[in-house]
């Protein structure tokens, strides 16, 4: 798995930003990501992977980040299409990112699989977090 800054210069063919303020927003984000994944031509399994990762990261932004937003981009680089999601919050931040990425590590009574799982389910994964400032997690999945 590559840990890259997810393609800042890749052309974006469509972009939208959705709020993460409630459990219902998490449901709406899943639906929006599904729609964009289909638009990018992702197959059923890849759609399911990116939607599942989106659900994990949206819930983290809600539960730990006190809410935030997600930017959903449909990407096209030559013949290659994909979806990029960028979740951000202005919450407490993550003091030890490596620890947070470890499977089964949780501070909230969860299963501790959200961050590590989202990384495994994506082709690109990037996380930045600063204590007292907030957290941004960006993932991408390519066709």
């Amino acid at each position, binding site marked *: 798995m590559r840990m890259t800054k997810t393609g800042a210069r890749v052309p974006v063919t469509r972009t939208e930003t959705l709020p993460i303020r409630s459990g219902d927003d998490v449901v709406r984000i899943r639906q929006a990501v599904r729609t964009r994944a289909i638009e990018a031509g992702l197959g059923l399994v890849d759609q399911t992977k990116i939607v599942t990762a989106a659900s994990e990261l949206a*819930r983290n932004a809600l539960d730990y980040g006190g809410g935030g937003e997600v930017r959903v981009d449909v990407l096209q680089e030559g013949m290659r299409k994909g979806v990029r999601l960028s979740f951000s919050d202005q919450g407490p931040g993550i003091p030890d990112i490596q620890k947070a990425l470890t499977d089964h590590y949780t501070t909230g009574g969860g299963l501790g699989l959200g961050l590590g*799982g989202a990384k*495994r389910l994506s082709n690109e994964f990037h996380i930045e977090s600063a204590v007292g400032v907030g957290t941004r997690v960006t993932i991408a999945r390519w066709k």
Partner: protein
Amino acid sequence: MDRIPILKLGGVLIVTIQVDMHDRLALALEEDLTAKIASTGARGVLIEISALEIVDSFIGRMLDNIAAISRVLDAETVVVGMRPAVAITLVELGLELTGIKTALNVERGMAMMQARLHEDDEDGSARARYED
């Protein structure tokens, strides 16, 4: 508040999850199932999830919780109808769903339950004979 209906067929409770689950609904289902297993003495819980387009760790934890509660109340949980794309994704997510049996569809899930109930009956009658 919305709730997910729980049906009873023989000694088995059947739940069909048809909506995109949100938090309150998941918690309500855990509570309702716990109460219903206790009040009916059901020996099995069959959860049909073919409508679910994803299973994330939140739903995974709900399934785990239901299975754990059922176990304590001496009932078995079988999850049926998981979509293949969901099953593939679960593995990569890292969800193990230990203690949860799965079956392809409701018929097979019911057959698994019936087999267990039947075994219990035989144990029971063997014990009864021994005690005679």
